[in-house]
C-alpha cells in the first residue's frame, strides 16, 4: 500500500498530479473542441449548407 | 540531367559571388558566435580549449542554418521554381543542385575557416586537422538538411521558428558525431575514427533523404 509518510513521497504525488492535470486537460480540450464543431455543424445544417444524411454530398452546391 | 545540375550550379555561384549575400552572412554570424563565447564564458584558457571543438561546431551549425533560410525563396518568388518543376529534369536533381550550391557557398568555406579561427577559442593545435576533416564531412549533411528545412518553409511567412524546430532534431546526430570525431580520443576509449565513419554514414542518409523530401515539399507548395 502506498505509504504517504515515506521520504520523497512529494515527487510521487507530484508526478501523478501532473499526469492527471495534463491528461485531464487534454480530455477537456478534445471534448470542448468536439462540442464547438458539432454546434457549428448543426447551425450550418439549419441554413441548409451542410447535409449530414449518409449518401448525400455533404456540401450542397450553392450556385 | 547533368547539364541542368551544372547550369544551376553555375547560375547560383555567379549570383552568390555577385550579390555576396550567402557567404557574407554565414561568416559574419560565425565570427559573432566565436567572439561572443569567450566574452560570455570568461577568458579562462583551459576552459575555452575544452569547449572549443563543441563551440566551433555550434557556430558552424547555426551559421549554416541561418544562411539556408532564404535558399528557395528567390526561385519561388520569381517563378523560376515553377518552370524548373515543369521541365524534364526531376525536382530531386534541382534540390540536390541547390543544396550543393549552399554547401559550396557557405558550408564548405565555414568548415575550412572554423578550425583556423579556433585559436580565438584557444583550440588545441593538434585538433585543427581532425576538426577540419570532421567539419568538411559534416557540413555536407548540414547543408542538405538546411536546404530541406528551407524547402519545407518556403511559402510560409514566419518560417524562422519552424525551420529551427524542424531542423534541430535532424542536426542532433550530426552534432554528436561531429564533435566526437574531433575530440573523440580525449574520452576513455579512442573512437574518433569510428565517429567519423558514422558521421559519413549520416551524410549519406541525408544525401538520400533530403533531395526527395525537399522535392516533395516544394511540389506541395507549387500545387
Amino acid at each position, binding site marked *: 500500500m502506498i505509504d504517504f509518510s515515506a521520504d520523497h513521497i512529494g515527487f510521487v504525488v507530484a508526478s501523478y498530479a501532473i499526469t492527471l492535470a495534463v491528461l485531464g486537460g487534454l480530455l477537456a480540450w478534445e471534448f470542448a473542441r468536439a462540442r464547438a464543431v458539432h454546434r457549428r455543424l448543426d447551425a450550418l445544417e439549419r441554413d441548409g449548407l451542410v447535409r449530414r444524411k449518409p449518401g448525400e454530398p455533404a456540401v450542397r452546391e450553392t450556385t | 540531367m547533368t547539364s*541542368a545540375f*551544372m*547550369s544551376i550550379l553555375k547560375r547560383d555561384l555567379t549570383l552568390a559571388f555577385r550579390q555576396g549575400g550567402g557567404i557574407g552572412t554565414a561568416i559574419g554570424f560565425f565570427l559573432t558566435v566565436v567572439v561572443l563565447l569567450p566574452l560570455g564564458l570568461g577568458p579562462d584558457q583551459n576552459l575555452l580549449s575544452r569547449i572549443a571543438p563543441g563551440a566551433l561546431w555550434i557556430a558552424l551549425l547555426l551559421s549554416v542554418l541561418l544562411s539556408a533560410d532564404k535558399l528557395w525563396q528567390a526561385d519561388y518568388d*520569381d517563378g*523560376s521554381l515553377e*518552370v524548373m*518543376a*515543369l521541365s*524534364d529534369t526531376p525536382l530531386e536533381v534541382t534540390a540536390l543542385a541547390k543544396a550543393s550550391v549552399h554547401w559550396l557557398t557557405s558550408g564548405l568555406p565555414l568548415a575550412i575557416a572554423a578550425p583556423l579561427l579556433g585559436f580565438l577559442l584557444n583550440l588545441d593545435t593538434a585538433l585543427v586537422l581532425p576538426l577540419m576533416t570532421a567539419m568538411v564531412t559534416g557540413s555536407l549533411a548540414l547543408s542538405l538538411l538546411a536546404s530541406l528545412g528551407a524547402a519545407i518553409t518556403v511559402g510560409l511567412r514566419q518560417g524562422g521558428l519552424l525551420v529551427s524546430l524542424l531542423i534541430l532534431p535532424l542536426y542532433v546526430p550530426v552534432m554528436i558525431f561531429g564533435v566526437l570525431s574531433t575530440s573523440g580520443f580525449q574520452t576513455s576509449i579512442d573512437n574518433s575514427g569510428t565517429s567519423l565513419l558514422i558521421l559519413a554514414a549520416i551524410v549519406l542518409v541525408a544525401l538520400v533523404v533530403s533531395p526527395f523530401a525537399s522535392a516533395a515539399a516544394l511540389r506541395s507548395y507549387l500545387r
Partner: protein
Amino acid sequence: MEISGKGLACERGGRLVFTGLGFSATGGRMLVLRGPNGAGKTSLLRLIAGVAEPAAGALSFTGAGEDGEIAPHVHFVAHQDAIKLHLTVEENLAFWAGFLGGGDIGTALDALNLRALRSFQAQRLSAGQKRRLGLARLALAPRPVWLLDEPTVGLDTHSQGLLASLMTAHLEAGNILIASTHIDLPVPSTDVLDFAGVTS
C-alpha cells in the same frame, strides 16, 4: 496532337474556382481563354501544365506519341518572368538553355529583339523588356505545348507583333498553343473558351 479536358473542377487556396469545365486544343489552332479576373484562366493553365491537380474531371494529352505526362512537353509562361535580376539578359537565357536542354541564345535574343540589351543586368530592364526576356524562353528548347498567361502584358505594339509571329510559327508547325489574353493577337485560326459562361 490534342489536349482536352472534361468535367474539370479546380480548387485554389481552398476556394472552388470552377467546376464542370470542358475544352479541347488541337495542334495548329490557338485556344484563347477569355473571362473576368479570378474566373480561373490561370488555374486552368496550371492544371494543364500539371503544376496543379484538378479537384475533379480528367485531362488527356494525345498525339505525337507522348501520351500521359504533359509537363515535360510544356513551356509555361506565367505572370512572373522567371528571371534573375542580378544576371545579364544573356546569362539568364544561357541558364535556361542549359537547364531546359538546348536552344540557341542568338535566335532567342533576335526573336524578341533583345540583342541590343544582351549585356545589361535584368534589373536595369523595364517591365516590358523583362516580359520579353521571360517570353524569350519560348524560343529556346523546342516544346510542342505552349501555355501563356497574359503574355502581352506590358508589351508595346512592336513587341506584340514579334510575339504574334513567334506564335504563328509555332502553330504552323502543328503545335498546341493555349493563351489567356484580352488583346486580339493577329494569329490565324483561333478558338475562344469564354469563362463567363462557366458556372462555378
